[in-house]
């Protein structure tokens, strides 16, 4: 799936803000000025002033000559950064991944967010109209790459939403400045007569590199989507990692224990604050001799209990070989999930069933100590054949999707594979008289059945059905036997499949 980005461009960021603060300035041409190298230069002008010919970078004296009643305000340094930060925070409602484009824009990574506002058009319209409603003169554009979105927001004339993989077509008619190039390169392009991007897009890369350098090609590739561009996020996603350097190399089990406990306490404090728990954690021990020893644990349910996690690591301490000593411990939690905040049970001497945290802790310990352990529960499944009617579930929180079929008689033990038996049966569809299993003859005294269980043709094609009988022999042993196929058919055979209590 392609990524999608929205670029927002605030054309008059600081002046719009000033109008919001002082509404009486709305119909007055005004500028912000700052002293640079002994001259007062304009750093921002409002729309009215710009209409009358005032532009950014002009000296204040010149501007006054053009517009006599120009209002000149002192620029507040750092104002634009603060404003963009605030606007970025406000945009968190649209996407969690937001970056600030100094000096006058925002970049939003909207991949997978647009459908919540009824598609890309509705999404972009919503953002732009909300910001315009606040009083900011804003333009937005959406594209597959940061570069194209930036360019179209600022220089595009036709449509703000660029369809996936059509960056090149969208960029052709734009001026080179839309590629975010440095002024020197722009000047050179201007001199050479490259007024639009299409005029140099077709030129060979080596020729372009020779004249304009690598940075130029990088910008072009980024805009076209051939190179990924990193975003400096407003709210960076911090990985769940803790480090613990040690003053002296550690080579005792006690030292490692202390290190694990300290790291877990730090990590769990953060997890607890965020209402999360870890499912897997790894401890990396950087040894003096340059080797890294790694041990990992996993849990059945998301957990942020130091004591529990420590117990899991405790089982692994023996496998950590410190050699000459460990100088750095790093604890990582690559898999983190929302943890349910568990309330202390007031009084439950019989235990809290499957939600019990003791049980989850116990199973974690078993699974971590014995690698080959197979821990599961069985849930009913809607299938006919007995071996398929149950489904193993490793999650303690899995809910039943269907109910247990209480009406059918099922054996207490079920053999992994039905075992072939020799039988003597007199009449079709009658239970056998006796059967021989492992050289022992069982004379049948009582029997129930048959219960016909059909093969599920949608799972394993055609084949014989099974007719199950409950039989009891002379000694009172009760078995579950079946005949595969019809009576006296060529391929029909008898099997023992289970034992009743």
């Amino acid at each position, binding site marked *: 799936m392609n990524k999608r980005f929205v670029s927002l461009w605030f054309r008059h960021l600081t002046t719009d803000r000033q109008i919001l603060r002082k509404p009486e300035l709305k119909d007055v041409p005004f500028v912000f000025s700052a002293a640079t190298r002994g001259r007062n230069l304009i750093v921002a002008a409002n729309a009215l002033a710009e209409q009358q010919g005032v532009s950014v970078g002009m000296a204040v004296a010149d501007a006054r000559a053009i517009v006599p009643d120009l209002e000149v305000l002192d620029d507040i340094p750092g104002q634009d950064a603060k404003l963009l930060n605030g606007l970025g925070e406000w945009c968190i409602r649209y996407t969690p991944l937001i970056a600030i484009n100094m000096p006058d824009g925002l970049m939003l990574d909207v991949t997978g967010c647009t459908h919540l506002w009824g598609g890309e058009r509705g999404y972009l319209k919503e953002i732009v109209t909300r910001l315009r409603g606040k009083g900011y003169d804003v333009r937005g554009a959406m594209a597959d790459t940061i570069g194209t979105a930036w360019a179209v927001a600022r220089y595009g004339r036709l449509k703000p939403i660029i369809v996936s993989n059509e960056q090149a077509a969208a960029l052709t008619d734009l001026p080179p400045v839309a590629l975010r190039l440095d002024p020197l390169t722009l000047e050179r392009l201007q001199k050479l007569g490259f007024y639009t991007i299409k005029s140099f897009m077709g030129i060979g890369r080596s020729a372009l590199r020779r004249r304009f350098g690598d940075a130029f090609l990088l910008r072009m590739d980024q805009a076209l989507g051939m190179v990924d561009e990193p975003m400096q996020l407003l709210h960076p996603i911090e990985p769940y990692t803790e480090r613990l350097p040690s003053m002296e190399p550690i080579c005792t089990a006690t030292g490692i224990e202390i290190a694990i406990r300290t790291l877990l306490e730090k990590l769990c404090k953060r997890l607890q604050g965020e209402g999360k728990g870890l499912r897997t954690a790894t401890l990396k021990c950087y040894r003096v001799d340059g080797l890294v020893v790694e041990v990992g644990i996993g849990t059945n349910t998301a957990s942020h209990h130091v004591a529990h996690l420590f117990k899991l690591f405790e089982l692994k301490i023996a496998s950590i070989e410190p050699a000459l000593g460990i100088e750095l411990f790093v604890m990582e939690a690559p898999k983190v999930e929302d943890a349910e905040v568990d309330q202390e049970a007031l009084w439950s001497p019989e235990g809290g069933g499957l939600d019990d945290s*003791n*049980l989850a802790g116990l199973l974690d*310990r078993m699974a971590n100590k014995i690698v080959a*352990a*197979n*821990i599961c529960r069985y849930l009913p499944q809607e299938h006919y054949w007995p071996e398929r009617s149950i489904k193993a579930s490793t999650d303690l929180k899995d809910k039943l999707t269907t109910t247990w079929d209480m009406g059918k008689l099922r*054996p207490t033990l079920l053999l992994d594979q039905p075992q072939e038996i020799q039988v003597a049966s007199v009449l079709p569809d009658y239970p056998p008289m006796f059967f021989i299993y492992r050289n022992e003859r069982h004379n049948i005294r009582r029997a129930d059945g048959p219960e016909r269980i059909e093969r599920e043709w949608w799972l394993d094609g055609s084949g014989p059905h099974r007719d199950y009988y409950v039989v009891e022999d002379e000694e*009172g042993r009760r078995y579950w036997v079946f005949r595969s196929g019809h009576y006296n058919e060529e391929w029909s055979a008898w099997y023992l499949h289970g034992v009743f*209590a």
Partner: protein
Amino acid sequence: MPDSKKDIIARLQQNILRWEGFVPPPASEAKGIGLGPLEAAFPNGVFPTGAMHEMLCPTLEGTAATGGLLGGILSSLMQKGGTCLWIGSGRKLFPHGMTAFNIEPHRIVFVDLPREKDILWATEEALKCEGLAAVVAEVKDISFALSRRLQLAVEHSKITGFLLRSDMRKLSTTTCVARWQVTSVPSQLPQGMPGVGHPRWQAELLRVRNGTPGSWEIEWVDGKFVTVEEQMAKVVYMETRIAG
């Protein structure tokens, strides 16, 4: 009035039971688990929960019968919403079959471990974990020392543990409170009725600590145990008891 000799002995016996961990249950919980006359074989006449029971299941059919009786016992132990842990290696228990004994099979957590050593470790850990209703472990054999470890864990956590032993060659003494052997017996139906009747077992208590061993015929009818011949336990003669 001075106590008669009989009273003194009774009181001393009670004291010994208490020291051994058999605390008489409060009156509100003195209902037992529905095993009827069989429960009278145990000290104080109550099925001991919070203790280890061992059950001998040498054959496949014996395992099935034991599974049935155990299912009935577990259903009353799990009534209050607890979970049961079933630890074993080559487990054949069919979870769906437990529905016949009023157990919701999804409330049993199965732990399959490849090695005997791991099973015993896991069993001990499980028995230490408060909050479980019962722990069932399928083992081949168990030594006295190991059974004592399990007993210590159980005394602390008050969980009921069941050991299903399959190797009958060397039946060593254990600290378990009772040794059971369950075998299937022919079911009975009213005269002339076809089909297989309710599950019926011969439940033998081969040894009971501070109790009276015996043998009972029990049937599982409509979700509860029914003792077939409502009679007191006949004392099993020493010859029929397996030495150990």
